[in-house]
């Protein structure tokens, strides 16, 4: 038994070596969870905003058709026999040209934007994966069970006294292995976050800037998403502006559905004001700020991440508000008997 215990001794130095400078990736877990939720909300803001834009356009078109009692035709593109095309299947006033896409650039960009969102959410989810403490708990449980199984089997061997010695040695081995895997996770977290962030510098006028000839991937992706969200938001604002004007235009003395129509105008105006206040670029700037704070946190020898915690919370809150703002569509009047 003594010989066997001695044979375990080479493992004994390992944990103490690993203990020095070993870092836990799990301390960032909650804040990275907030960051990841924020990224998911930015993705939802895009899809909700895109759907709302088309819903707003439909509301506006329907309003105009109702107001003008237009004689309508169905677009050729709606026909089951029509060749596949990018032309929309919609009603259009008789005598007018066939409907064409309202926002061709936004529509043609959609696939590319979904790809960007996919890359960014996958990145955020990978950050969660390397900081997932449940994996370590599962590892500890599996190691503990293996130890118990070996010990139980050895206790039935011709020399059962070897079992406690093996158990002690295995515990040290499993502990050291767990620490080594934790260290690998922390190292890849630090490396990935630093490379994805790049050497951002704060400028009082421009915010976070990427020095010339440097690469700052998260900033590049966030700025591009901000541009797409701005474009959707601006397109919606114009449709909503036109809708409010069309809604209030006929209102006056003797108008039969004055209350209903004014209610719809008020609702649409409120959505417009909400969008005026929503700043997509502010949300994507908060994303950049939070990621930069994460970079600082993982590179701080003291592992201080209070700045990251507050930046991640701020980003998550702004992203959720943006998602809600972009998801609210315009509203048609409940009935429209005209004047």
């Amino acid at each position, binding site marked *: 038994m003594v010989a066997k215990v001695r044979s375990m001794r080479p493992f004994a130095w390992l944990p103490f070596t690993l203990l020095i400078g070993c870092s836990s990736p799990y301390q960032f877990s909650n804040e990275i969870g907030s960051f990841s939720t924020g990224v998911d909300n930015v993705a939802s803001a895009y899809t909700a905003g895109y759907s709302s834009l088309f819903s707003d356009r439909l509301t506006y078109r329907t309003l105009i058709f109702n107001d003008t009692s237009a004689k309508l035709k169905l677009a050729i593109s709606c026909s089951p026999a029509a060749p596949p095309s990018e032309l929309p299947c919609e009603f259009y006033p008789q005598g007018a040209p066939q409907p064409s896409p309202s926002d061709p*650039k*936004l529509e*043609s*960009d959609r696939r*590319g*934007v979904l*790809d*960007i969102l996919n*890359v960014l959410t*996958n*990145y955020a989810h*990978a*950050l969660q*994966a*390397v900081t*997932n403490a449940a*994996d*370590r708990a*599962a*590892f500890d449980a*599996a*190691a503990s*069970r*293996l130890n*118990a*199984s*070996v010990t*139980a*089997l050895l206790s*039935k061997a011709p020399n059962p006294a070897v079992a406690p010695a093996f158990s002690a040695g295995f515990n040290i081995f499993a502990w050291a*292995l*767990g620490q080594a*895997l934790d260290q*690998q*996770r922390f190292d*890849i*977290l630090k*490396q*990935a976050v630093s*490379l*994805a962030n790049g050497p951002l510098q704060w400028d009082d006028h421009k915010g976070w*800037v*990427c020095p010339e000839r440097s*690469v*700052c*991937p*998260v900033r*590049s*992706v966030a*700025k*591009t998403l901000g*541009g*797409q969200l*701005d*474009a959707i938001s*601006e*397109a919606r604002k*114009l449709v909503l*502006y*036109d809708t409010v004007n069309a809604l209030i235009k006929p209102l006056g003395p003797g108008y039969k559905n004055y209350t209903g129509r004014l209610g719809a105008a008020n609702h649409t105006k409120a959505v417009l004001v909400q969008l005026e206040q929503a700043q997509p670029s502010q949300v994507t700037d908060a994303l950049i700020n939070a990621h930069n704070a994460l970079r600082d946190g993982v590179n701080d020898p003291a592992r201080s991440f209070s700045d990251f915690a507050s930046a991640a919370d701020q980003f998550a809150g702004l992203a959720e508000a943006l998602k809600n703002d972009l998801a609210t569509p315009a509203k048609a009047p409940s009935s429209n008997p005209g004047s």
Partner: protein
Amino acid sequence: MATTIDDIIAARNAAVHILDHEIQDALAKQNAATSEAAADRFNGPIHQLMAQRVAIFERAADDMLNSSELASALNTLRSLTSDMNTVAARMGSVAGFFKNVADFLDAASKVAGVLKGPGG
């Protein structure tokens, strides 16, 4: 020199700034019109300016999406994501290995118990 995303945003903001002034100016003139007919004449031009403003945002968004800076950024993030997932999976693999060995040993232990018999 390749156009950066910052260049595109700066050009977009400059163009929008000019249009915003024109729109504000046209709206002020429309409000000052002495008759409804005179005010209505501004509707078309104002709407065109606003539509042009939206088109600038959409064009800039499209340019950013197709920039080489973005393509390079996406490639970097994809690669880093893959590296992190590979490392994250190692702990699960080791835990799975431990579990499989434990299952095997548990089965072996039962067999050993049977072979040993009630008398030991």
